[in-house]
């Protein structure tokens, strides 16, 4: 049991820092080869990611508007943009909304996808193929197309959702303008993001479930354990690392959700669906305050890393255990 757990925990992308399992690693080879191999990746990251990021930091420290974008020559203003931003109650409202949005989405995604994964494992061959194919199709649906389709589903006049709701007796949904009502628009976006994210999470978790050796279940059953007990005592601990990977990826992805919101509501009505990335783009591109927009993005990165520190700590802890 311990051996299995170790194997599951020590390898794979979930613990990128973990050393390779003993016996697999080759004896240390000095030389330039590894550096030659990573050179293109590092060069790419430095030029296409680090450098633009530094430029963004610089912009956030300058007075940078439309004029500066066109004419150049921006003035350095230190932390003034950050002061403006952090002193704005609207910004904190957006931060709060971002966390609500993220927690809501991530919890829904993980709960639903765990249930789906467990369900798929128990299905027969036919059912399994059917569900997996359906999941894959939903997953493959391009974001822009999916967003357009959701707009159409919830269309106030000809949308099928209003028709169905009216049909089963909710007369108040006749021509109900979903996107005009803040909480309703928010709920639709959560639905859309959950719909788009569950397939990846469910398929990944399902694969994790298939790696749990069947003998474990059998022996537990012989000991008289209930289904629930088996899940909490055996299944979940076994898939925990991959669960954590999915969790952290979903945190990153929902925190960065932008295209769906931008295409569907532009953050409206009012500010009801404005979360941090939308706020940053709105500030930068609509109000032409590139400096404030950059500052908002930097704050977003810091907040997001804060959330993920927990995950990284877990990762480092596992690494220590193995030493």
């Amino acid at each position, binding site marked *: 049991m311990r051996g299995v757990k170790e194997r599951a925990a020590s390898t794979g992308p979930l613990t990128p820092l973990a050393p390779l399992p003993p016996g697999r690693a080759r004896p240390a080879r000095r030389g330039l080869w590894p550096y030659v191999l990573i050179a*293109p990746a590092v060069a790419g990251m430095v030029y296409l990611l680090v450098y633009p990021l530094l*430029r963004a930091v610089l912009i956030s420290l300058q007075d940078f508007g439309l004029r500066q974008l066109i004419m150049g020559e921006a003035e350095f203003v230190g932390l003034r943009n950050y002061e403006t931003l952090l002193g704005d109650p609207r910004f904190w409202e957006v931060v709060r909304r971002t966390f609500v949005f993220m927690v809501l989405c991530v919890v829904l995604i993980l709960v639903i996808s765990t249930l789906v994964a467990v369900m798929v494992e128990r299905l027969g061959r036919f059912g399994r193929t059917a569900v997996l194919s359906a999941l894959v199709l939903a997953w493959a649906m391009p974001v*822009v197309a999916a967003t*357009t389709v959701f707009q159409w589903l919830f269309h106030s006049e000809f949308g099928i959702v209003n028709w169905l709701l009216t049909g089963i007796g909710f007369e108040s949904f006749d021509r109900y303008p979903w996107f005009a009502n803040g909480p309703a628009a928010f709920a639709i976006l959560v639905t859309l993001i959950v719909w788009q994210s569950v397939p990846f999470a469910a398929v990944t978790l399902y694969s994790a479930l298939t790696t749990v050796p069947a003998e474990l279940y059998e022996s537990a059953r012989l000991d008289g354990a209930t289904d629930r007990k088996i899940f909490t005592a055996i299944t979940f601990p076994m898939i925990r690392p991959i669960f954590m990977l999915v969790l952290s990826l979903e945190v990153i992805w929902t925190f*960065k959700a932008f295209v769906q919101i931008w295409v569907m509501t532009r953050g409206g009505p009012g500010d009801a669906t404005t979360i941090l990335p939308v706020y940053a783009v709105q500030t930068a591109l609509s109000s032409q305050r590139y400096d404030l927009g950059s500052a908002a993005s930097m704050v977003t990165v810091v907040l997001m*890393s804060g959330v993920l520190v927990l995950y990284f700590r877990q990762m480092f802890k596992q690494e220590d255990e193995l030493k």
Partner: protein
Amino acid sequence: MTVTRPRIRRIPLNAAAAVTVLVCLFPVYWMISTAFKPSRDIQSDRPRLIPYTWTLDHFRKAVEADGFGLFWRNSILVTLSAVLLALLVALAAAFAVARLQWRGRSQFMLMVFVAQMAPWESLIIPIYIISRDTDMLDRLPTLTLVYFMITLPFTIVVLRGFIATIPPELEEAAQVDGCTRAGAFRHVAFPLLAPGLMATSLFGYITAWNEFAYANFLIIKQQDNRTLPVWLSSFQNTFGTDWGATMAASTLFALPALVIFLLLQRHVTSGFAAGAVKG
């Protein structure tokens, strides 16, 4: 275990499976069926779940819209080159990380992981400025490079997991037989990696195929260099209320992704995820 379970107990399970399938597929179905319905059926007070009459008008309208074929070509070109580039670069890096011991390895992987959090929406302005100053605006290779970078970190992380599943002993055996190190990797490990590469590339493919913000902001004057997502969004403006045509355009846009995913379904569900899990 499942065989011995009484039939009755499986009913809720099967019902749940049916609901899952329904929920997953309905929006996809609704997109496709709307695309085939005549306009008067679309804008009717009683939507029909199954089209009464079928029409190809909407598809005709979408395909005949300005530049459709050109933008398709652009999208495919940009997406494929970005994904292939990312695969090549990631393969080298993942090999180094999974198979070789060197100083800075953990730091490198940490950097890769952090790179996944990059706030791409906010890097538009700096990247715009950099492209402008290097005369790379309005060009498809700029988009290729950006998409390459967006997909690279995830590709490295997943490929590293795949490479680690292949026992190095296999390559060592090949090396004994006289292959070079690289040759051993190429002849022995690479074929085993194929499903992993395929699955990983799907992620990159979807990301690059979908990308809108950069395509919209970096292609300015050369409108012939626009990509499909940008076209779709302007199409939506032009034919905003023609939901049939909009859905037809969405269908055409989604089609390659849907087909590829369905064809590679086995690799996606088992290959990709298992690779990520088992490491």
